[in-house]
């Protein structure tokens, strides 16, 4: 029915009865196999729900079906020979619990363990987080430095690395994330930093650094900053200058300059400020991981 807006224009807006009718036509599905879920997700206006908060926040008004993923056999975490596979239904809390036993130094423990709040970590799933990768994601930085992969079933089933996943959002439509894979997740020294205004907050940026050393030689180092205009930025310039080099090389790097990432303005600070202190924290994380200085949070 037509509603006259304050601009003077008439707009078509469903009245409450119409909205109510379509609201009551939302179906909830609770599939028990991945194939079943994938088939349901291929339908029009049907959305997956892992238990996280994004769908609650955005609402169900544009959907006619919700596929609840909780019954799928995707709630597992396996670590074998450094290969880490996490089922999409693992919550942040369960990943932290499981990894605290299997690989307590893993950067994912620090990152996911500080995301959101206790109650929210009990609902946010790996699958949900990967599907949305919001600008404040605590997963994306570690995902980037550990060079994780996203495994999916359904319409566009396959395995995706992070950049192709982020570059190709439409690939997610009708597709079910079943797990994430980290081919080389163990035996890293790591440092994770999240820039927050108070403890329970969504980071304006995060810094993730992982490295392997052999005596005073840096075998490999990876560093990423998330939250900038690009979802996540690998600091490849720094990595190239340090990979295979002696630890002393760190002192010769102008990290503050090389770690500059472009930000947009956020409530937490201006673009210039965020860019400047992100670089400060990159330097601190590098020093923490490589030289053992200072704290890692």
């Amino acid at each position, binding site marked *: 029915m037509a509603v006259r807006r304050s601009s003077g224009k008439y707009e078509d807006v469903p009245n409450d009865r119409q909205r109510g009718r379509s*609201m009551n036509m939302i*179906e909830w599905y609770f599939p028990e196999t991945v194939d079943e879920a994938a088939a349901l997700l291929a339908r029009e206006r049907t959305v997956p729900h892992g238990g996280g908060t994004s769908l*609650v926040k955005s609402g169900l008004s544009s959907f006619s079906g919700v596929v*609840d993923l909780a019954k799928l056999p995707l709630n597992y975490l396996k670590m074998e020979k450094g290969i880490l596979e996490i089922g999409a239904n693992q919550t942040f809390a369960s990943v932290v619990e499981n990894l605290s036993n299997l690989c307590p130094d893993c950067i994912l423990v620090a990152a996911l363990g500080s995301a959101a*709040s*206790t*109650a929210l970590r009990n609902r946010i799933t790996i699958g949900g987080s990967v599907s949305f990768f919001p600008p404040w994601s605590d997963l994306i930085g570690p995902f980037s430095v550990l060079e994780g992969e996203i495994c999916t079933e359904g319409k566009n089933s396959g395995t995706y690395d992070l950049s192709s996943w982020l570059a190709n959002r439409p690939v997610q439509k009708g597709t079910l994330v079943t797990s994430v894979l980290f081919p080389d997740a163990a035996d890293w020294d790591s440092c994770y930093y999240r820039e927050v205004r108070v403890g329970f907050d969504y980071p304006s940026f995060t810094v993730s650094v992982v490295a392997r050393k052999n005596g005073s030689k840096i075998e490999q180092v990876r560093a990423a900053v998330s939250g900038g205009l690009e979802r996540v930025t690998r600091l490849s310039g720094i990595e190239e200058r340090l990979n295979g080099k002696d630890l002393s090389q760190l002192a010769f790097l102008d990290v503050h300059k090389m770690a500059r990432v472009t930000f947009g303005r956020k409530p937490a600070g201006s673009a210039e400020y965020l860019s400047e202190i992100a670089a400060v924290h990159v330097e601190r994380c590098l020093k923490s991981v490589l030289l053992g200085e200072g704290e890692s949070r």
Partner: protein
Amino acid sequence: MKGSFIVNGKKEEWSFAPDAVLLDVLRNNGHTEVHRGCGEGECGACAVILEERLVNSCQVFAASAAGQKITTVAGIGSIHSPHPIQQAFVETGAIQCGFCTPAMILAVFCLLQKTPNPTDEEIRKALDGNLCRCTGYVKIIEAVRLAARRMSSNE
């Protein structure tokens, strides 16, 4: 749509809209001890225990909680027979306005289940999503220490 829930040990069959959140379904069916502070998962006042895990009930679709066990603060103790955590909160003066208290107590309950002798850091972390504007958290942390001491000495 309809769903059944086991709330504080009692089986319930409730009707709700497909997009209803658990907070509203609980409150509309008499569980006013679950409080709405923000409706956005940012304050923790609505927290309940869903199958052993602390969750913000305003961020859980009732449909996705159907068939599961839910515990509210009324399920761990009553005014006639309070739980040691409830008693500890009373005794240390950790309750001022009390609006955050039910959810806070459930957060403590979950913590002590997993970690019977938590450090102060573990306590603060377990309560990280439960905002309190009245107490400054000082006596809340004292209450947790007291409850932990009493509960572990009883085992």
